[in-house]
């Protein structure tokens, strides 16, 4: 049984007699799950638009907090009884709960608050099972329920919006008072139709987004009754989709334009778009068109070319025809539009680029000025240089890297580390920050800049690193000492120079900074006229600056920014310091991405700091004795700048010699593979935590060198240093074999036999350990993988990729060969039930060991040095990924966003 509502509905309860009562200024609203993703942006707008009609909201665990809005704060409670106990009174409940919570939320609201007469359910995908219960509850308690899966109600006359986001973030743009009521199965089209009607001079009374679930709780029959009783509503638009008999029995006493769309849905055998639109029954689009044609006494669809209508109404199948149909129907009733047409629906192109193609006229429409306020926004967009990223909580999230859980391959700015491994070290260092790889010219400039600052002779940082090494610290700890001393003041000149260059060139139409034909006279005159020259030039001569320019000339590297600086120095008189040249190089590298808004200005200003850290980290890895003024590890600084790639310099710092082509390739692959394992990896977490703690919302205060300390302190003997485990394992296997050259296939060793011997040995060890109850017995490093397992023969696709890469170059590695024999042997002797994969960590170990083998057997380096070299190599590679995370977090993160709420922490007694 149900309480008696509007008399016209004797068989079920309807409480609202007129659309004028659908959304009133007197309605007081409580929002369930007010802090949910959608409500968070919608409710403050609704509240302000409606003069402050939301009295409270609920969000479990948020009691005591408030939602800030332009119309004042909305208090938040854990639950409804608490809100009621606080004295709040409301008659409307708006539901933003997740689908599984909607039914219980409605039941609870009805239970605790007898004053409720309307419930608006915004949630999509509410199970039908719950919808049928919600319907019954509403009927039993005399409550009008709207939705679910709707966008609520808006009354343009009352200036009230309840529930969803009709009219979007600027409701007054679309909800202009007039004489047409809207009933729409589509939430988006509710607003779109209101906007379209404006173009024919029609405003709206009440817009209702009905939802299109199987259960439409407040549906067409009830709405039509209320429409007839609303004196403000002279006509209506109904947007109707297939499915359901809600409109079948409708009878109208006022003009209506019905738009029925979705004939194609007759092809569907399953729901698509809106649940319930299932074909095959008598409620498809064709049937519904027919219903309305009969109601209006017309025999065809209204189109501008065939404007069929009666005084009762018209049927359209294209929403663009609604305004014309409305005007035509109303003309037959002698009613003029509410106001002068606002805008029109003709094609208006706001952005266009034909890419120089000869297109037919139809496909090359003129770009027109957009309607306010979009015109101003477009103008501002044209002024804006660089990207502005929305800030969000970046804990465990990254805009720089992501690991595919299926392939375990990490991508950095969209490039897989497998592809990155085929790039040079310096290219990857640039890409980590700039998001794009440099061209050959850019790479040459980067090599000059990175090598210019690699020699740490005389730097206090090198002394600190050396002292740390002597104290027995691990490489990450020692290098931290050097990086800690590279604070903001050390790079202020370069950062100021970068900011100045951006300012001078931002509206110069420079797109390609390698195009030295570019006319930079404009920026030059501005620099001469203002303060820029003071930032970019210095009185004292700088030998590093001169050497960098000479090296660029020797490499044939060109840059508009460099030529600009030289011209400025010539015109004004003065010298170019190394730091300024560095800024010109980094700005050059970033410029195309900045212009395409892939990068922020913040990043471009930060780049010189990152570059200095790159150089300092590599430079400080070399022993103090290897560095003298003008000479690094036995090579002149000038020669490094002129002839060496930064990858070669890193190899030099690590192993004391320049690599040959093959060694350079292996070294680059190695560094590429180490770049990143996604934002969850410990090193990334350390870097991100350091950014978060400085407060990225004030990006200028973030100490980038400290962020690298976060990365370095979050590496260690278990993360980064563990690469040596595999090397140590292989050393044990090969120590007494007399192996001379691990790159030669003519090694003369029976690897299969060696593997089999070890497999048997391991089997015995494992049996004994298990018999003794030791389940944490030593595992063989670098084989098997939690993802790549379970097949008769298993492969880690990353290892396969790199093995193929080397194999195609004819490059051989005995240690990798041994690993492949080993997994077979382990299977043969019964250690494993299938053939384990050789995982990607093995690749890293075997490349390193191959590089270090000869110096080791020749007694040049001890195992301790070898371990340090392995660890440092990891740091060199991981620096790339960490740089990307640091800069990404600075741009996107919120202050202290990596903290874990106390509620998610646990105590272990």
């Amino acid at each position, binding site marked *: 049984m149900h309480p008696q509502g509007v008399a016209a509905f004797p068989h079920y309860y309807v409480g609202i007699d007129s659309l004028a009562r659908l959304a009133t200024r007197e309605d007081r609203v409580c929002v369930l799950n007010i802090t949910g993703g959608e409500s968070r942006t919608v409710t403050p707008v609704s509240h302000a638009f409606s003069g402050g009609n939301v009295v409270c909201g609920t969000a479990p665990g948020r009691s005591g907090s408030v939602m800030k809005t332009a119309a004042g704060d909305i208090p938040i409670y854990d639950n409804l009884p608490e809100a009621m106990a606080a004295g709040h009174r409301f008659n409307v409940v708006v539901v933003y709960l997740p689908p599984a919570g909607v039914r219980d939320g409605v039941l609870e609201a009805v239970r605790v608050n007898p004053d409720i007469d309307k419930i608006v359910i915004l949630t999509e995908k509410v*199970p039908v099972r719950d919808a049928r219960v919600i319907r019954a509850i509403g009927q039993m308690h005399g409550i009008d329920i709207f939705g679910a899966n709707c966008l609520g109600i808006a009354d343009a006359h009352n200036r009230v919006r309840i529930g969803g986001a009709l009219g979007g973030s600027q409701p007054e743009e679309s909800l202009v008072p007039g004489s047409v009521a809207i009933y729409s199965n589509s939430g988006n089209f509710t607003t779109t139709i209101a906007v379209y009607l404006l173009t024919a001079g029609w405003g709206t009374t009440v817009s209702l987004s009905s939802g299109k679930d199987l259960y439409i709780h407040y549906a067409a029959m009830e709405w039509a009754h209320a429409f007839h009783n609303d004196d403000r509503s002279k006509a209506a638009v109904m947007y109707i989709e297939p499915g359901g008999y809600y409109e079948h029995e409708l009878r109208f006493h006022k003009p209506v334009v019905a738009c029925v769309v979705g004939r194609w849905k007759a092809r569907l055998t399953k729901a698509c778009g809106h649940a319930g639109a299932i074909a095959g029954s008598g409620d498809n689009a064709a049937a519904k068109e027919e219903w309305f044609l009969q109601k209006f006494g017309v025999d065809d669809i209204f189109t501008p070319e065939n404007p069929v209508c009666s005084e009762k109404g018209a049927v359209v199948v294209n929403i*663009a025809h609604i305004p014309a149909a409305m005007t035509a129907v109303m003309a037959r009733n002698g009613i003029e539009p509410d106001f002068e047409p606002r805008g029109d629906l003709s094609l208006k192109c706001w952005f266009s680029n034909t890419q120089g193609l000869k297109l037919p006229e139809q496909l090359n429409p003129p770009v027109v000025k957009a309607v306010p306020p979009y015109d101003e926004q477009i103008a501002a967009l044209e002024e804006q240089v660089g990207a502005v990223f929305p800030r969000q909580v970046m804990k465990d999230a990254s805009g720089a890297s992501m690991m595919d859980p299926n392939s375990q391959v990490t991508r950095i700015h969209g490039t897989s580390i497998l592809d990155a491994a085929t790039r040079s070290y310096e290219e990857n260092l640039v890409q980590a920050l700039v998001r794009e790889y440099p061209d050959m010219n850019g790479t040459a400039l980067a090599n000059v800049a990175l090598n210019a600052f690699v020699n740490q002779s005389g730097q206090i940082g090198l002394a600190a690193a050396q002292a740390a090494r002597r104290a027995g610290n691990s490489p990450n700890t020692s290098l931290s000492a050097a990086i800690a001393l590279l604070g903001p003041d050390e790079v202020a000149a370069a950062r100021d120079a970068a900011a100045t260059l951006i300012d001078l060139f931002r509206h110069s139409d420079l797109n390609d900074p390698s195009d030295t034909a570019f006319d930079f006279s404009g920026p030059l005159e501005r620099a001469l006229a203002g303060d820029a020259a003071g930032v970019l030039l210095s009185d004292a001569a700088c030998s590093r600056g001169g050497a960098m320019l000479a090296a660029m000339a020797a490499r044939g590297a060109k840059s508009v920014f460099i030529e600009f600086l030289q011209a400025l120095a010539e015109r004004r008189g003065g010298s170019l310091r190394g730091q300024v040249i560095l800024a010109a190089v980094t700005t050059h590298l970033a410029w195309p991405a900045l212009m395409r808004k892939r990068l922020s200005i913040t990043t471009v200003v930060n780049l010189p700091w990152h570059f200095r850290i790159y150089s300092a980290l590599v430079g400080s890895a070399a022993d103090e004795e290897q560095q003298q003024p003008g000479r690094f590890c036995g090579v002149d600084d000038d020669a490094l700048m002129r002839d060496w790639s930064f990858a070669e310099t890193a190899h030099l710092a690590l192993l004391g010699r320049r690599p040959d082509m093959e060694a350079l390739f292996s070294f680059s692959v190695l560094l590429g593979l180490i770049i990143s394992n996604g934002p969850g990896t410990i090193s990334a977490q350390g870097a991100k935590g350091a950014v978060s703690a400085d407060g990225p919302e004030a990006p200028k205060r973030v100490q980038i060198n400290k962020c690298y300390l976060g990365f370095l302190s979050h590496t260690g003997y278990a993360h980064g240093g563990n690469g040596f485990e595999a090397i140590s394992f292989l050393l044990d296997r090969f120590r007494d074999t007399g192996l001379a050259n691990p790159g030669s296939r003519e090694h003369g060793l029976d690897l299969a036999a060696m593997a089999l011997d070890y497999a048997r040995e391991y089997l015995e060890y494992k049996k004994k350990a298990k018999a003794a109850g030791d389940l944490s017995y030593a595992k063989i490093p670098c084989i098997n993988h939690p993802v790549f397992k379970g097949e008769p023969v298993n492969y880690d696709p990353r290892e396969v990729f790199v093995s193929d890469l080397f194999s195609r170059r004819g490059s051989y590695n005995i240690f990798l060969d041994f690993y492949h024999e080993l997994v077979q042997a382990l299977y043969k002797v019964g250690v494993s039930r299938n053939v384990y994969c050789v995982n990607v960590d093995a690749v890293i170990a075997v490349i390193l060991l191959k590089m270090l083998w000869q110096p080791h057997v020749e007694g040049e380096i001890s195992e301790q040095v070898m371990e340090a070299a392995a660890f440092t190599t990891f740091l060199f590679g991981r620096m790339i990924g960490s740089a990307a995370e640091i800069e990404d977090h600075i741009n996107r993160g919120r202050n202290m966003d990596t903290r874990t709420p106390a509620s998610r922490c646990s105590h272990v007694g």
Partner: protein
Amino acid sequence: MQITGMYWGSRLLDYVDFPTSEVLGPEADADRIAGLIDRHGEIFIKPMFKGGVGRKGKAGLLGRARDVPTAMKEKARLYFAEHFHNGTPVKAEGVTFEGAVPAEHEIYFSLTDSTEYRAPIITLTHYGGMDIEELPPEKIARIPFDPLTGLKGFVVSNALKRLKAPRELISPLVQSLPRLWDLYHTYGMTTLELNPIRMRPERNGRLTPVACDFKCAFDDDDPNWKRLDLPASVDASSYSEFEQEVNRLRTYQGQSDVFVINEQGTITAMTFGGGANALVTELLGESATISSDFGGNPPYAKMHDISRIVYTYWLEQSNVLFIIGGKANNTDIYETFRAMADALRDHFNSHGPQPLYVVVGRGGPNLIRGMGYLRDTLDALGLPYQMFGHDSAMSEVVNFAQAADRWMAEGGRELVAKRLGIG
């Protein structure tokens, strides 16, 4: 998720102890089939169609046998039988062997939710043996009932009395049919149809209702049916690989509904909103590859995933990438456009550039920032594009996309390819 036939139907009906005909699956060997014939005298051989393939037209695909050789012959005939359903060819994957149930009375029964009554409703008639649609209304009882109390015996009793059903039918049906509500409501069904239920006489003369065919549809939004542990393959055939991949992203925030329109289509429309989906798909017709609705303010990561999947399946063959929606109320245009742009750039990075014309029609929060981001990306990729605001009629923008598609088909594609350096 939809299920047709007794193979799975009998297992579901077992949950509520509703008697069923005896059913063997396609794996049954000759001995078991012989046993079935021994017990029932006659058996039916029915092709198994996956998903919600309807009954109509299926009658001709029914085999009968009283001996094993005939049963095997019918099995061979029907195992991969083809059948048109809603104009689409579907193929059987196996057969069932079902014991015949002797009966004088056949009952039609269904449970569903009615949009006329906005309540669950039973449809019942004892005038079986013909299609329910062909019966006059007075011979069918359609009775809504309160979901809070469920389907009770008196609802069934009243319905049968109104139909003037023979007395001997009433008690057995009153006792058995309410059990189906448990199956229907507890496991998240939206339709349950038993047609026919044959009233088998027992030795004491009492009739037992035996379900001889089964059809049900589950609510995709209701997790309860997953408790039944039905294998995904039961309904897999009704979704394409692309649809299945997108469906895996189904969460309550943001729509991700897709439907393949034409595997040879040349316009791939990323559509936002149910209304836009309905309109745009209708206007594009067969030139569309897919129909989609990605509205509901999907977060960046979900939109990026959706875009990646769409591009992987459809971009190569497409002339036009069409991003279209009305004036969004709540969908953040910047976030969705950024995701689509980034995914497009990633796609080009991994698959290489490809000739494409991009047409955009959209409105909503952060519109210009979103369009600006997409513009910069398309400029970088070297693709031609036009973007229209929400004050351009959506249908006009569709016409524009179709004109771009025609131009691409008539030689433009080669010109764009040349511009990209891949011609």
